[in-house]
């Protein structure tokens, strides 16, 4: 089915390369993929095509979802999930690994511990490169599936008040998401202990772009007028000692008491894996959408695979 709009990218490296029109186009395409992603319909538009999953650091969920997305479209996958088996262990440059892998496959998915790895790969690959996370840098398919989830659950991305909680200082997911949301007409609320608040640089850019935002120290004081609460993990290693960590982590726990104050139709999201940020008792409430969010990774990745390979559904 032909959609209005265009997608002219050779690679998907950073969400910063996308305009709002391109984002919406990908999300529309993902919506069309839903029946196939859920197994209600089948297709073989990528029959005979091979995806190379090059995971230089482990990320089981991301790797499985790319594999599932490719197979739902009728394609095949090759690759590795353990850098110990790759020739980088023998001292090969990433540039060489990519040059070779792109001659074996039709599309390359790369996860790498160093920032900028995907951009470098895109310069050496003869096939489209999809960034599946590079160090503390970009993870564009995560951002797109976050946006897809917000749109699916709230009908539209604009018009929502979105709270983002957790490690806002170092979290790459929240930086990319904030950048993407700032293209829409949303109100943003940043919830974090002061040492982990959103970097000043990002706040300054929001102000310059006329984007309104609030800052809070804990979820309880911010939750009541939110439409979406996006929770991320606070990492132990950011704190000088266990005691400090527990003190903060405790105030970032979303439980039944927290959601009592929330709007009835508020949506709770989390990029997963979670540790203690959301109590399991919340999972069964209608607020919880984080498992659906993870499932949304499949249609979004299917959309990107088909667009990058120039094959219409």
């Amino acid at each position, binding site marked *: 089915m032909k959609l209005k709009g265009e997608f002219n990218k050779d690679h998907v490296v950073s969400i910063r390369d996308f305009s709002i029109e391109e984002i919406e186009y990908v999300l529309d395409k993902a919506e069309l993929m839903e029946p196939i992603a859920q197994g209600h319909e089948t297709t073989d538009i990528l029959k005979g095509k091979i995806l190379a999953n090059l995971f230089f650091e482990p990320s089981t969920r991301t790797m499985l979802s790319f594999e599932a997305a490719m197979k739902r479209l009728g394609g095949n996958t090759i690759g590795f999930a353990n850098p110990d088996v790759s020739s980088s262990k023998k001292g090969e*440059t990433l540039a060489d690994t990519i040059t070779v892998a792109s001659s074996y496959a039709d599309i390359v998915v790369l996860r790498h511990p160093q920032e900028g790895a995907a951009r470098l790969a895109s310069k050496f690959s003869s096939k489209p490169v999809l960034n599946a996370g590079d160090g503390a840098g*970009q993870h564009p398919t995560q951002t797109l599936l976050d946006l897809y989830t917000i749109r699916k659950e709230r009908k539209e991305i604009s018009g929502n008040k979105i709270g983002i909680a957790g490690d806002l200082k170092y979290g790459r997911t929240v930086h990319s998401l904030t950048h993407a949301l700032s293209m829409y007409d949303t109100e943003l609320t940043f919830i974090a202990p002061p040492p982990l608040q959103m970097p000043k640089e990002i706040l300054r850019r929001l102000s310059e772009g006329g984007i309104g935002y609030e800052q809070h120290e804990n979820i309880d004081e911010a939750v009541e007028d939110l439409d979406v609460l996006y929770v991320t993990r606070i990492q132990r290693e950011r704190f000088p000692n266990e005691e400090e960590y527990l003190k903060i982590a405790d105030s970032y726990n979303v439980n039944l008491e927290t959601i009592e104050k929330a709007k009835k139709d508020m949506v709770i999201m989390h990029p997963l894996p979670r540790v203690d940020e959301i109590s399991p008792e919340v999972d069964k409430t209608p607020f919880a959408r984080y498992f659906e969010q993870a499932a949304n990774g499949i249609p979004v990745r299917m959309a990107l695979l088909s667009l990058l390979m120039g094959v219409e559904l």
Partner: protein
Amino acid sequence: MNDKKRAIKISPIRKGTVIDHIRCGQSLKVLKILGLTDVEIRDVVSIAMNVESSSGKKDIVKVENKEISSEELDKISLISPETTINIIRDYEVIKKQRVNLPKRVSGIVRCRNRNCITNQREPVDPEFKVISSEPVNIKCIYCEREMKEEEISENLL
């Protein structure tokens, strides 16, 4: 009187390039950027640091016999955007211009992010997009990390 004193410090050159209004203390880095610290350089290079001028103290570099291209000189704007360039022939200034920050910068500075792929053993030069010229702010095209003047100065290749 002042003029005379200055003339003694750095005498006029017959032919070459005078790099003036260099931000105080940056002249050695200017030499490095222009590759003038190379032992193979045969031309006379004179440096004056902390020279009084109407707009405060500055550094000056004079390179004899060599007309440095403006493309080369523009690289200086990364660490000293107010710098002016004078091309000299027969003791006369035949061309005077300010340095301009290019849109992209490559091969002069490394990314400050130690975990950037360009700081690994990969066959690429670090490359940056210029975000703003006043104040200078550049962004690594690989890891997207931004660098300000001070960081640029600390990471010259």
